[in-house]
């Protein structure tokens, strides 16, 4: 007789039994041992049909294809840039993927992206060996000027964005900041004044700390409401 030992969206730790019996299958963050499915990480359970997954609550960014991320340009070679996207490996952005311009032989790549500059970019390919290719060829991808960047746990970015972007548009509306949330946990915020940026930062930190709880949108809404009033005074 198969049964689920855990509930949906429950915090589990490595070694916890998730399900008994052969009717369930181990997904991400879980493995089978004998008849049981055991969790292999600290995370939140997610049951989709017969598959039992454990989504991590922490850890560094794991790159995935088509993720839009915020990267720091670290180095460049003859024909490509090397970008830190916050994961275990450096990503590379080739000349072809960086710009539609014709680049003269021997011209300096730093005319386009210099070392230390920050770019909003998309991951076009990831190999198992850890080679990551980036592209700038998609609408909205560009160099980021001004503003500030905060880092949160990458696995919590979906909560910051919310369903159909509900959470992030709430923060944008209430603080008047432009915000980009990269899938790698880096969030770029640019506001009209430092106070607005600070308020947006605090709201995002609140989400980061309470990402595993429910009723988060209301909570963040109340938080922003309360502080917006204080700012007006």
């Amino acid at each position, binding site marked *: 007789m198969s049964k689920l030992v855990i509930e949906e969206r429950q915090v589990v*730790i490595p*070694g916890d039994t998730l399900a008994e019996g052969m009717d369930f299958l181990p997904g991400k963050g879980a493995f089978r041992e004998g008849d049981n499915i*055991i969790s*292999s990480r600290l995370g939140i359970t997610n049951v989709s049909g017969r598959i039992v997954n454990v989504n991590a609550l*922490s850890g560094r960014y794991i790159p995935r294809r088509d993720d839009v991320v915020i990267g720091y340009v670290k180095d460049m070679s003859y024909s490509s840039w090397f970008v830190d996207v916050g*994961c*275990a490996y*450096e990503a590379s952005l080739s000349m072809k993927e960086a710009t539609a311009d014709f680049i003269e032989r021997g011209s300096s790549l730093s005319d386009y992206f210099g070392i230390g500059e920050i770019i909003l970019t998309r991951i076009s390919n990831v190999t198992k060996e850890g080679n990551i290719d980036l592209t700038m060829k998609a609408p909205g991808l560009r160099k980021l000027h001004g503003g500030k960047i905060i880092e949160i746990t990458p*696995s919590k970015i979906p909560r910051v964005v919310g369903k159909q972007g509900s959470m992030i548009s709430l923060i944008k509306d209430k603080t008047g900041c432009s915000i980009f949330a990269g899938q790698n946990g880096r969030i770029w915020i640019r506001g009209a004044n430092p106070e607005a940026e600070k308020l947006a930062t605090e709201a995002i930190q609140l989400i980061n700390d309470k990402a595993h709880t429910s009723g988060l949108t209301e909570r963040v809404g109340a938080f922003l409401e309360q502080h917006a009033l204080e700012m007006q005074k």
Partner: protein
Amino acid sequence: MKYTKRIDGRKFDELRAMKAEVGVVKNAVGSARFQIGKTVAIAAVYGPKDLFPKFLQKPQSARLRCNYNMMAFSGSGERVRPGANRRSKEISMVIEKAFEPVLDLSEFPKAVVDVYIELIQTDAGTRCAGICAASLALADAGFDMKDLVCAVSCGLVGDQVVVDLDKPEEDFEGGAVDIPIAMLPRTGEITLLQLDGEISKEDLKKAIEAGKEACKKIYEVQKAALRAKYAQEVVA
């Protein structure tokens, strides 16, 4: 030599008071503090990240690199000379080996995961406290691991089998045998077993059994610490 009553008044199979906390180092990917009696270990995990020099890279998985360090002020007597030494390097190595069967780093080929274990206060059983802390820190960092690792020292003081020796017991004038043991609590597999001293086969068996029982108690403390970090708050 007879050892009838423990120096600090504990029962022979009783552990010192334990305290564990997760997420204590802000800049680390995962971190934990584990205290048993007067021994306090802090572990911080960084990575996965690029590993250099390149010849150290493993093509199929990330390398686990532990760094065990007793802080200069951590001992109860003489100042500990800072930096790596023969003892700390060896302990770092056995701690790495203790995690090998549980930790799955195949998702991060060629990278490295660094675990820094700092002992801020020591009263024997430091490598065991270090393993307990590192285990929590690695779980906190979200790595795939089949189980937590629990560790405790057991052994013989005089003629008595005890668990969790403290420094006065290790230095007992009637002789003491110190056996650090690390165990996977779910399966009971042993991932670290060292022995310092002389012990009979029967006593060794008894000591290991006692150590296994003690590890289960440590496991409870570790589980509680991990769950406490994400305890569901009642939304007011």
